[in-house]
């Protein structure tokens, strides 16, 4: 067992964990943050995407012990009050159907907009290359991210 200390969504967490526990299962079962989804568990689908020290990563491809000392952001942590503009845009642009991929998609979009506030369509498509969606056909998701970028840009200008 290992004692890990980390920050999730700005809050401190400390737990004893088994070395083989994956970060995704730590988040869901120990930290009780169940917004992050488990899709494939093999690193292919991106449903488990979170932000790890500022970078989008697949939390099923990291051990919980590797997150000792790290700062994470999960889907629960992006909205300040109400919904985050990316979440609103996903609703406005019908970018959600079954919703399984949505937390991961939103985290990939969030990581993109943190680095590149005004992405073009190619950049948006590249940013979600690691996220699979079985429902939407991606078009609405791309539109939602583009819409969110404009929305965030407008609110920052005000």
């Amino acid at each position: 067992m290992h004692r890990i200390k980390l920050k999730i969504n700005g809050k401190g967490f400390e737990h004893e964990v088994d070395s083989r526990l994956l970060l995704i299962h730590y988040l869901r079962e120990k930290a009780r943050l169940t917004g992050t989804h488990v899709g494939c568990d093999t690193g292919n689908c991106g449903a488990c995407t979170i932000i790890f020290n500022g970078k989008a990563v697949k939390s099923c491809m990291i051990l919980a012990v590797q997150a000792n000392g790290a700062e994470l952001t999960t889907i629960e942590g992006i909205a300040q009050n109400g919904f985050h503009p990316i979440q609103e845009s996903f609703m406005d642009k019908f970018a959600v159907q079954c919703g399984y991929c949505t937390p991961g998609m939103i985290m990939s979009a969030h990581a993109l907009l943190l680095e590149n506030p005004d992405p073009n369509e190619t950049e948006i498509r590249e940013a979600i290359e690691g996220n699979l969606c079985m429902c939407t056909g991606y078009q609405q998701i791309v539109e939602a991210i583009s819409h969110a970028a404009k929305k965030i840009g407008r609110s920052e200008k005000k």
Partner: protein
Amino acid sequence: MYPNRFEYFAPTSLQEALSLLSIYQDEAKLLAGGQSLLSLMKLRLANPKYLIDLGHIADLNYIRQNGDKIAIGAMTTYAQIKDSELLRKDCPLLVKTASVVGDVQVRNRGTIGGSLSHADPAADMPAAVLASGAELKAVHLNGERWIKAEEFFVTTFTTALAPNEILTEIRAPTLAGHKTIYLKAAPRPTDFAIVGIAACLRLGPNNRCEGIAMGVTGASDKAYRPQALEKALQGEKLDFYTIREAAARVTEGIEVNENIHASSGFRSHLAQVYTARAIQTAMNS
């Protein structure tokens, strides 16, 4: 899915990691970005008893100029290579290659050292280090040695590294003035290569080929330099027919892979087409 039980170590210095490795030898595995190893452990294809995480050793993550070479720490991620101004200027082949590995999340975790040490026969980075003429530094408790990229890849998942060695640095010559490209044929952009071709050319007047080094991945049990092809083009004027004729030799002497993505005949054909295309694209770059 979760791995078998193992004991986890997070050394903060290379010395400490080397000591652990020399104690546990074959029962230990090094953990870099985990983007290959954790998959294998979850599938229980790899079952190390001891896992030595290199992620807390600060001086394995750097990109810096070293005379006429560029030194890259083994724990440098694909994303860091992709975004490096120094590499973009002096060794763009590595930047171009890192940019097409997997997806954003994989590039944020996966490391150059992990990719080379893993020696997946379809991985992208091995082709680029072969074509750029890089040398790799292997360190053990009592010393170190430099291994040429050509001598590093032995066969599928097997390199020249001994069980007590850690790959710590990749040193690539600056290739300013060279024409370089990496082209990959894959089922989808984020997939492993069916074939991947890295090319590095130095052109004289009238497109005479004054220097050529290529790296081929995906075609066989390991990434390799196609020597017959390089010889055929060295010193020649590179025009369409010369390139096409020479490209036919890219798999000469090689046993070409066969799997669900491509038969060996189709894969050889693809290798030839991508070789010719890579050389032409590099020339026009």
